[in-house]
C-alpha cells in the first residue's frame, strides 16, 4: 500500500517547514525510526523519522522548498 509522507507539525506554532536535506532517495528501503529528511522551522531544525517501514517511491519536494504542515513531501510503498 502506498502511504503519503507528510510535512509534520512539530510543536504548537509550526505552520510550515523548509526541507534542508533529504536523507533518503527513491528506491531506498527504510525502517520505522529511520531519518527521512531534515527540516528547519522558525524555531529549530529537526530530523523527521519514518512512521512506517517500506520502500521510498518518490520524493515530491526539493531541498530548499518550504512546505505547509500536512502537505505530502514523499510517498512510500509499505512492506
Amino acid at each position: 500500500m502506498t502511504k503519503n509522507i507528510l510535512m509534520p507539525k512539530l510543536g504548537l506554532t509550526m505552520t510550515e517547514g523548509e526541507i534542508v536535506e533529504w536523507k533518503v532517495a527513491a528506491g531506498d528501503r527504510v525502517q520505522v525510526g529511520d531519518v527521512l529528511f531534515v527540516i528547519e522551522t522558525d524555531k529549530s531544525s529537526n530530523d523527521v523519522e519514518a512512521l512506517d517501514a517500506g520502500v521510498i517511491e518518490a520524493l515530491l519536494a526539493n531541498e530548499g522548498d518550504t512546505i505547509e504542515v500536512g502537505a505530502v513531501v514523499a510517498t512510500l510503498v509499505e512492506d
Partner: protein
Amino acid sequence: MPRQGANAGDQLAQLLRHYEQLLTVRRCEERLQRLFAEGEVPGFIHLSIGQEAISVGVMSALSDSDTIASTHRGHGHALAKGMPLEGFFAELLARDSGVCRGRGGSMHVADMSVGMLGANGIVGAGLSIATGSALAHKLKRSGNIAVSFFGDGALAEGLLHECGNVAALMKLPILLVCEANGWSEFSPADRQIAFNLADWSKAYGIEYRKADGNDVLAVAEAAEVLIHAVRDGEGPALLECTTSRWRGHFEGDAQKYRPQDEVQGRDPLEVAAAYLAREGVGEQHLSQISARIDAEVEAAIAAARAAPPANYESGFADVYTLSAG
C-alpha cells in the same frame, strides 16, 4: 482495590487489568503521536510513554469517587481513571462529542463523572486543585481522597510548598504523587532542584514512600498502603515514583539537550508481562489482549473522526455567567 486477603485468582485478574490498562495508555499515545505528526490533533501534546505504570498503579487503589488532578502529561491519568476512549479521542481531535465538547484538548481533558478534575498546562497547578478537592472531601466527610500528580519539574514551584503546608496543617485526605522522570522540561532535574522529597516530607510531617515507577505492582502496593492511611484521616502522604520519559518534553521536541546514551528505564509493559508470565499467562494471551485493545482504540478514533467538530457557537454554554466585567 485491596489485595490483602485476595486469593490467587483475584491477583491474576488484577494483574491482567493492570496490563490491559498499561497497554491501552501506550497504544492511545502511540496513535496520538502519529495523529499529531499528521496534523489531526490541534494544539499541543505531551506524551507519557514510559511512565504508564504510575497512572495505572495509583488508580488501581482508588475508587470512582476519589478525585485526581493531572498535569500537562495527563493522558495516562485520564484513561486509567476511567475516561472512556471515545470521549477521550473526540476531545483530543476537538470534536463536539469530546469529554469537554472539544474545547479543552489534550491539556484540559477533564471528566467529573470519573473524578478526573482535569489536566492543565501550568506546571504544579494540579497540586492546588487537588488540595481544594481534598478539603471538600474532608468537609463533606465523603470518605474519598484526592490525588495530585506532578513531575519533578514541579518541585521548584511555590504551590508544592504552599499545598504541602496547608494539607499537613489541616490533615487533608490527599496523596501527592511525584512522577520523577529526571527532567524539568529541557533541563536535568538535578540542575533545578535543591532538595529531595524524602527530606521535604519530613519537614512537613508528611508520610513518604518511594517506588519503582516502571513496576506497576510496586506502585500499586505503595499507593495502597499510603492511601489506606490517608483515607483513615492520618493526613497527607507522598509517593515518589522514579521513571523515564521516553519522548520529548512535547511532541516535536528534538531533544538535542539530552545525551544520546541516557539509560532508558525498564519498559513498564515488559515488567508487567514478566509478572504475568510467572503466573502462566503466555505470549498468545497477551497478543489477544493487544489485538482487542488495538481494535477498541481504532474504533474510538474512527468515531471521533466521524463526529462533528467542536461548536464555537456553544462556547459560552457552560460558563458561570455571561455578564461582562
